[in-house]
């Protein structure tokens, strides 16, 4: 807001000083013509002119230099527009002059001279305005890419010019050589500064054409204004010397030279840059394209978009007429992305090249273009004469090929080969990163799934076990990080019958948890019906045959405890043998019976592989049930816990209650394995009879 007010103020000052200049200058001129001593001092117009210049100088400084949004073409446009307005006003004045009957300057009438001076002063004001505008604009262009040295030189130029205003104001005895020397210095500095044309390189093709046109017109306006001012000044000069002549003004003269020279330089530089613009633009585009490929990994949703970007950028970078990208990530996935070529055409070329057994086709060699063109020539009906092919590697595997085609023979040069090679390498890296990310996500998802499966598995195990006055029972189950498939349960059939099951599902993870839930369902439905243990196994096998996949099985032992007869019937289907402590004989043994795991025999003959067993229990007897995680637990040296140790341990603690026996067993197991991190499932179930 403040700078806006200042610009307005400066503009007003400019107008006022110009009016003052007109008034004083005309009055002096008039006085001199009429041979009267002028009422105003003769040096005043010069001072006023310099004030006018100063106000315009700061006006444009504020208006142009501070405006951040102006681009190069905008700047040129502003200069052009100022020139246009100046020229139009100047021409309009000529028209008025003409309509008034074009008063001859040599008619010496005071009115004519005064009128001519007015026209001259208007033109002078316009010229100075135009010059100041151009000066500010050129300053921005020159200082677009600045160095310390350049800034210093410019500061010298600008300050020096302003100092000359003082020199001009005070009409220091006009020494011809001083004027010439000063002008010479500023012209030389202006010329040196005019060598800074870096901004031209940042113009694109269209902008360059626009700039050329604007500059050409600007130069034309400059020349017209100079010519007009020069003739007008000359005309007045013939009559009187008492007027403000800009020819002796170092500032204005230096500016004229500088602005004109820079305009012409810019015009020529742009003109000569025009043919190479496309190359610069291409290079810039390559950089942008490269960034796109590099960043595609962060922003793109799929590998497909990486492929599309690769195809697009490669085509635009080498001006290919057509292209395809063949992707064979694995045996099942085959994709073809095409650009301006049909799938059929691409396959024709691929088959043609393959059938000619051209080994080096998909190499990154730079000399391949020529060779391939030769092979293409033998393919009838193809419009393409050049082909450039690149392999895309992901983790050392060739996952696909990028092929670029041109209708021109030998249409690809080494530069293009390098660029596309870089692109395809980058695309390979992007895809690799992409896959790594995907893998990490997949792992995360898998872990999450396992967590759920583990929760499900835990919830499938009973929280309360069947209690009976005849026996105590305790159970424990702990699974490794991976979900195991250990299962145990109890169910009361009637007041004197209790069934117990322990089972181990082969495999781990979600499928194991799933099979475990099936086993639970089978147990709860079959046990209710009070069927013999061997029959239980046969029916369970029958039920499981339909849901267990190839290679999966479940080992289980099923007991029915009869508290009336004090007998236990059981059947073992491939599960770890029962460990039994006979209190009366103080003997611990593994029951030696036979039985094939559930799911191993998938027909009716399974019944012949299951044995029905029965034994009587006495008070103090202990039945230890467990899964293979217990016997297969390993110590630091890789030795297994084994059946012997388990048996010996039970002998030691036969007098304890089931819960205590269990605690001791678990404690011993952890002590044996020497780690808190188990790598299998431990399940134990201990029944002690009373």
């Amino acid at each position, binding site marked *: 807001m403040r700078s806006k007010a200042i610009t307005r103020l400066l503009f007003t000052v400019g107008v006022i000083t110009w009016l003052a200049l007109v008034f004083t200058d005309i009055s002096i001129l008039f006085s001199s013509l009429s041979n009267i001593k002028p009422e105003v001092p003769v040096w005043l117009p010069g001072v006023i002119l310099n004030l006018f210049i100063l106000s315009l100088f700061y006006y444009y400084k504020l208006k142009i230099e501070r405006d951040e949004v102006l681009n190069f073409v905008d700047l040129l446009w502003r200069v052009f527009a100022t020139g246009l307005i100046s020229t139009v006003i100047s021409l309009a004045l000529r028209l008025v002059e003409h309509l008034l009957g074009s008063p001859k300057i040599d008619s010496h009438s005071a009115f004519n001279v005064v009128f001519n001076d007015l026209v001259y002063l208007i033109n002078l004001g316009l010229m100075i305005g135009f010059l100041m505008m151009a000066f500010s604009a050129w300053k921005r262009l020159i200082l677009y890419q600045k160095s310390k040295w350049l800034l210093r030189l410019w500061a010298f130029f600008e300050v020096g010019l302003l100092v000359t205003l003082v020199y001009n104001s005070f009409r220091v005895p006009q020494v011809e050589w001083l004027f010439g020397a000063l002008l010479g210095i500023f012209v030389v500095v202006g010329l040196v500064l005019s060598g800074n044309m870096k901004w031209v390189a940042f113009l694109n093709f269209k902008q360059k054409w626009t700039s050329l046109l604007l500059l050409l017109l600007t130069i034309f306006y400059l020349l017209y204004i100079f010519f007009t001012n020069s003739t007008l000044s000359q005309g007045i000069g013939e009559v009187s010397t008492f007027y403000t002549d800009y020819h002796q003004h170092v500032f204005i003269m230096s500016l004229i030279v500088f602005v004109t020279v820079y305009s012409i330089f810019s015009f020529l530089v742009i003109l000569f840059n025009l043919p190479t613009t496309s190359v610069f633009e291409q290079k810039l585009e390559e950089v942008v394209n490269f960034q796109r490929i590099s960043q595609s990994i962060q922003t793109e949703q799929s590998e497909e978009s990486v492929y599309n970007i690769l195809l697009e950028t490669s085509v635009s970078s080498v001006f290919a007429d057509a292209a395809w990208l063949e992707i064979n990530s694995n045996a099942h996935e085959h994709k073809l992305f095409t650009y301006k070529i049909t799938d059929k055409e691409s396959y024709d070329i691929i088959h043609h090249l393959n059938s000619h057994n051209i080994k080096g086709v998909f190499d990154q060699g730079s000399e391949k273009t020529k060779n391939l063109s030769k092979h293409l020539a033998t393919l009838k009906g193809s419009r393409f004469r050049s082909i450039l092919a690149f392999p895309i590697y992901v983790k050392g595997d060739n996952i696909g090929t990028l092929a670029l085609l041109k209708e021109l023979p030998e249409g690809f040069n080494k530069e293009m080969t390098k660029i596309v090679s870089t692109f395809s390498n980058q695309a390979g890296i992007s895809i690799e990163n992409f896959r790594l990310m995907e893998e990490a996500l997949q792992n995360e998802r898998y872990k999450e799934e396992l967590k759920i499966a583990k929760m499900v598995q835990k919830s499938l195990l009973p929280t309360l076990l069947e209690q009976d006055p005849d026996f105590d029972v305790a159970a424990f189950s702990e699974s490794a990080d991976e979900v195991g498939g250990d299962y145990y349960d109890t169910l009361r059939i009637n007041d004197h019958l209790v069934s117990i099951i322990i089972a*181990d599902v*082969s*495999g*781990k993870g979600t499928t194991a948890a799933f099979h475990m839930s099936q086993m639970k369902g089978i147990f709860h439905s079959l046990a209710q019906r009070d069927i013999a243990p061997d029959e239980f196994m046969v029916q369970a096998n029958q039920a499981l045959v339909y849901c267990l996949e*190839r*290679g*999966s*099985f479940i*080992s289980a032992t099923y007991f029915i405890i009869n508290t009336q007869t004090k007998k236990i019937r059981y059947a073992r*289907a*491939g*599960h*770890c*043998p029962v460990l039994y402590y006979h209190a009366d004989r103080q003997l611990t043994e593994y029951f030696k019976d*036979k*039985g*094939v*795991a559930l*799911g*191993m*025999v*998938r*027909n009716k003959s399974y019944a012949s*592989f299951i044995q029905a067993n029965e034994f009587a229990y006495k008070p103090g007897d202990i039945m230890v049930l467990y899964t*293979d995680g217990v016997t297969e637990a390993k110590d630091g040296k890789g030795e*297994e816990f084994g059946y012997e140790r388990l048996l010996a341990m039970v002998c030691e603690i036969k007098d304890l209650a089931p819960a205590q026996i269990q605690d001791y067993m678990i404690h011993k197991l952890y002590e044996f394995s020497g780690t808190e991190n188990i790598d299998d499932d431990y399940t134990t179930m201990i029944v002690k009879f009373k």
Partner: protein
Amino acid sequence: MIHIKRLQEDGADVIALVGEIDASSSIELDLAIAKSVGEGFSKILVDCSALEYISSAGLGVFMSYIEEFKDRNIKMVLFGMSDKVANTFSILGLNELLHIGKDKVQAKQIVNEL
């Protein structure tokens, strides 16, 4: 870790298992047997003398072929098991479903008698 070697003797394919078979290496065992079947062998001998450990997944592989072999009249005999490995087979009842010989000679005998 498992290392599987295959060699042919008297028209039978001898698959030697060296090391341990767990959930991940059981896939290799499966592949080896499938390959042998694919090559048209009707007599397969599995040398378990250097097999140190077999998990339920590995046992599942043997189990999964039982029915298929019966249907296609392919004879498979395992031999040379250590007591520990043999115990693993017998607990699951697989010794009743598979043919297991003491050594290679006995295994060849069994395979020819079948």
